[in-house]
């Protein structure tokens, strides 16, 4: 089985993208980074391909919004990062290693921000799927019920985290040892540096929803949770 066929996309999916999507999150980025470096030799950390065509998340997220979010914002984080690490100790370092090595260091804030945003966005695209929503696979659902009481309670917690994150940031479903939790992070902060295993994320920077929803972040987050959340991806990350 693969989450790709489950979610009904494939046109832009490269073989490498397919492999990456099937792998765990950790491997995903090693593969994604490597595959992209083959295409753009000047940049060791490339912009990973979107796992589905830009227009397939509509009407929840429009193709126009996707175009800016992926093609401008995500790309800028990747480009900035490559600029910043050129000739530095991080030049040939995997993305996750850059993130953990620079986290919390005031003098490496720019590298951390751009590295973490590169990672968070790639993770976000995989947290969504054109025919997402619905129910998680049984094993994940069981763990969610054990942690939250019910799937509904988990979705409510995720929505609440998305809506109440003040300013720019992210809402996450994470695994903390055996427990499933919802957390929120500010700006570029990521559970990778907190000893937590990210399962899925929702971008709540205003750029993620402003063209489609303006100030109505709750409508965006509710629609994403309802119609786009890729529970299969979360389940794969849990393993």
């Amino acid at each position, binding site marked *: 089985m693969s989450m790709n066929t489950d979610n009904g996309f494939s046109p832009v999916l490269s073989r490498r993208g397919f492999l990456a999507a099937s792998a765990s999150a950790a491997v995903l980025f090693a593969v994604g980074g490597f595959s992209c470096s083959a295409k753009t030799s000047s940049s060791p950390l490339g912009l990973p391909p979107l796992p589905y065509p830009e227009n397939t998340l509509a009407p929840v997220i429009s193709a126009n919004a996707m175009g800016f979010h992926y093609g*401008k914002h995500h790309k800028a984080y990747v480009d900035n990062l490559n600029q910043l690490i050129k000739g530095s100790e991080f030049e040939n370092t995997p993305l996750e290693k850059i993130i953990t090595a620079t986290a919390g260091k005031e003098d490496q804030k720019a590298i951390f921000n751009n590295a973490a945003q590169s990672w968070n966005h790639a993770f976000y695209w995989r947290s969504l799927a054109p025919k997402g929503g619905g129910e998680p696979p049984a094993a994940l659902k069981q763990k969610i019920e054990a942690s939250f009481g019910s799937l509904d309670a988990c979705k409510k917690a995720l929505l609440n985290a998305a809506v109440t994150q003040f300013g720019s940031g992210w809402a996450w479903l994470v695994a903390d040892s055996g427990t499933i939790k919802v957390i929120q992070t500010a*700006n570029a902060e990521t559970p990778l540096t907190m000893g937590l295993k990210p399962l899925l994320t929702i971008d709540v920077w205003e750029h993620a929803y402003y063209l489609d929803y303006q100030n109505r972040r709750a409508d965006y987050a509710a629609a994403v949770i309802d119609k786009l959340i890729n529970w299969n991806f979360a389940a794969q990350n849990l393993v």
Partner: protein
Amino acid sequence: MAFTLEKLPYSYDALEPYIDAKTMEIHHSKHHQTYIDKLNAAVASYPELQIRKAEELIQTLEKIPENIRTAVRNHGGGHANHSFFWSILKKDAAFKGEIADAVVKSFGSYEKFKETFASAATTLFGSGWAWLVKDGGVLKIMTTANQDNPISQGKFPLIGLDVWEHAYYLKYQNRRPEYVEAFFNVINWKTINDYYLAIK
């Protein structure tokens, strides 16, 4: 309710083409209103806070009851910052008055001031504000995250530029530098001069 949204002293399209009417309308009638609603909710059981100005609340945040301090900081800040922002916007106002002299004296030239301010506003990561403040006797440029206001650090704002994405996304999308560049055409130096003289 204690805190209410004031009408803008100009129409939503008054700052076109630098800041578009649709952005102004949503920014004022939705975002600013929401900060006010949430501030009112935060102080709902504190009548003594309801009669104060939002600026006063955030100036002495340490005096705000702990259970509502973050809400007052965020939403009181949001209310105060946006009220201040609307007040310093006007199209094509001349750069003159004592404030102009002070800016030139502090930064070397108007161009140098503009460059420093623009750099602060474009490089601020995430949501927040860029400010020209009076800190003791000196003019300074600084940034704050989210809805923090320099007044909470004992500095007096003279210019504040909202660089939350909601402030520019409909017109400029990811191009914050273009929004910041446009902002220099809508700075109301007359009002800012009044603020400067009042705290001088």
